[in-house]
């Protein structure tokens, strides 16, 4: 106990030095918490954008659909399966889709398009399709109307409330053909989708493709995106072998790869940060040991065991590092919180790239407590490893040499 008291007093002997050490630890924690939470925030946001844009976090198809996306690889609408899935509290919503290719024509212009039959209400809850509307009205179940992407509309040289004809192949080789009024126009960030997408109410699409009660996919939304893999595995169990359950990572491996690459870049930045503070802390430790050389020798000379002296120095380090870490964590909480409420907005080319894909280039930080804990512990660990240096010096201390003028 008295060793701790002495350690505490020693912290105040050279306030500047203690302040420098604490400050470097403090900033280290703040900066690494920030990088970590911004990093995660960016990726979470990216995933959220991409996923909610079209794919959803999890999709269920008939086994084999993803490799061969044709209408015959479809399944019967199953309220039993829907109910089973929704029984899992981690799954918040399910929306059915029937997707297939068709030709859209008007006058003498014909263009290929991707027809997506949707449940307008449920779809909107998951992908917020209605927010992409730039003209007209959102789809309504049962109507013979289409929601057309802006690019497709232009390519067909049509306007809102014009009529277009869809021709294609229906379920089991039937011929699909239908006439629809364009009731709404939507703009999508992805140029590719913006040129090809066409939405119909699910029932209308099923009539078109002569596929009553048939779906190509269920799109699932989940409570916690981090649990996507376990939920996906569980859902596969629930659905059985005739279905394939895929997470967004499986459906879009390139995005997963992109995140991985960027993550490792961030790790390098963090390593540099750790290295910088290590030098800072080590410098103050060197200074401290040089300044106290005589005193430490004197303490051993008068009978202080080296183990006790080591304990004293370790207590001093721990107090400094711990205080710096705690203050750093405390200070980073409001900063991270503020950056979540007032997200970082990227400008310039990067922003344009994001906007092209229909995402706003804003990145709220992640307020996951793991950032504070992990980064705090990491810096704490660095501090403790560095404080082994004084301990090493103490074990080698020779009082006669230390006390030589």
């Amino acid at each position: 106990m008295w060793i701790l008291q002495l350690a505490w007093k020693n912290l105040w002997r050279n306030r500047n030095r203690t302040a420098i050490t604490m400050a470097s630890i403090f900033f280290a924690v703040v900066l690494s918490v920030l990088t970590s939470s911004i990093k995660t925030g960016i990726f979470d946001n990216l995933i959220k954008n991409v996923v909610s844009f079209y794919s959803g976090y999890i999709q269920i198809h008939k086994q084999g659909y993803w490799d061969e996306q044709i209408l015959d690889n479809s399944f019967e609408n199953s309220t039993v399966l829907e109910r089973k899935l929704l029984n899992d509290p981690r799954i918040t919503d399910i929306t059915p889709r029937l997707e297939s290719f068709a030709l859209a024509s008007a006058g003498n212009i014909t263009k290929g398009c991707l027809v997506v039959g949707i449940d307008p209400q449920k779809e909107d809850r998951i992908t917020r399709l209605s927010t992409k509307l730039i003209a007209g009205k959102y789809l309504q179940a049962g109507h013979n109307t289409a929601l057309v992407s802006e690019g497709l509309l232009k390519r067909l040289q049509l306007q809102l409330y014009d009529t277009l004809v869809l021709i294609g192949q229906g379920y089991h080789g039937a011929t699909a053909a239908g006439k629809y009024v364009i009731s709404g126009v939507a703009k999508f960030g992805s140029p590719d989708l913006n040129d090809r997408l066409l939405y119909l109410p699910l029932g209308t699409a099923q009539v078109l493709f002569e596929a009553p009660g048939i779906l190509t996919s269920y799109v699932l939304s989940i409570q916690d995106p981090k649990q996507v893999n376990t939920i996906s595995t569980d859902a596969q169990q629930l659905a059985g072998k005739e279905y394939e359950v895929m997470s967004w990572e499986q459906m879009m491996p390139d995005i997963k790869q992109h995140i991985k690459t960027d993550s490792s870049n961030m790790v390098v930045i963090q390593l540099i940060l750790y290295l910088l503070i290590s030098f800072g802390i080590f410098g103050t430790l060197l200074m401290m040991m040089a300044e106290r050389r005589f005193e430490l020798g004197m303490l051993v000379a008068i009978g202080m065991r080296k183990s006790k002296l080591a304990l004293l120095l370790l207590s001093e380090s721990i107090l400094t590092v711990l205080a710096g870490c705690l203050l750093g964590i405390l200070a980073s909480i409001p900063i991270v919180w503020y950056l979540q409420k007032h997200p970082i907005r990227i400008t310039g080319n990067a922003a344009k790239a994001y906007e092209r894909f229909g995402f706003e280039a804003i990145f709220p930080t992640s307020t996951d407590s793991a950032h504070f804990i992990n980064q705090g512990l990491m810096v704490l660990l660095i501090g403790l490893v560095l404080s082994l240096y004084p301990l090493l010096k103490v074990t080698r201390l020779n009082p006669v040499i230390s006390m030589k003028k």
Partner: protein
Amino acid sequence: MSTVIDAHNISKIYNKENIPVYAINNVHLHINQGEFTALVGPSGSGKTTLLNLIGGLDKPDEGKIEINGIDITAMSPNKLIDFRLRNIGFVFQSFNLIPVLTARENVEFIMQLQGINKTEREARIQTLFRQIGLEDKMDSRPSQLSGGQQQRVAVARALASKPQFVLADEPTANLDTASASNLLDIMALLNKEENITFIFSTHDARVIERARRVITLVDGRITSDTAKVDTHVQH
């Protein structure tokens, strides 16, 4: 009178590989309980080296040192630290005290190392500060004390552990005449009243005068060893 220190044929050799320097050269030293002995000699004559050897801070290259019949030259480093804590009081030339502790805390420190309980520590602190005449400075930091006062606190600390003897390496070297004389008064009084054994090195003539036995070192050898009437000196 009982023997406290018995050093047989001790030598300390530096620079053994090249041209060996005998900092201490075949010295015999015998110190009895209650002595008040000065170690004198020019700078570089080996005073500090000899004190370090008999204080167990350094090991001789030749010879053997016994404290109360215990051979300290064979002790392991940790044992030796504990031995110093319990048997030897140290007063160095300067910077004896821990700067962040008050005078009383510095004295208490060594008793905390010894594991002495609070009541006993408190009682001892009162006695010691009365003996060094600094009852009113107990709560001052070393930086708030004069050099002489700091050395008196160092003496109190050296005594706090109830050692067999106190070694003081040029304790007055950084003091003015009045402070030096005052420190010597206190040491002499403690020696007389409590029979505390002091061995101090010095090259200050006025300090030498106060000693009851004077051992002179030249080039690591004892060249003379004289005692005043009331001390038994054996050669």
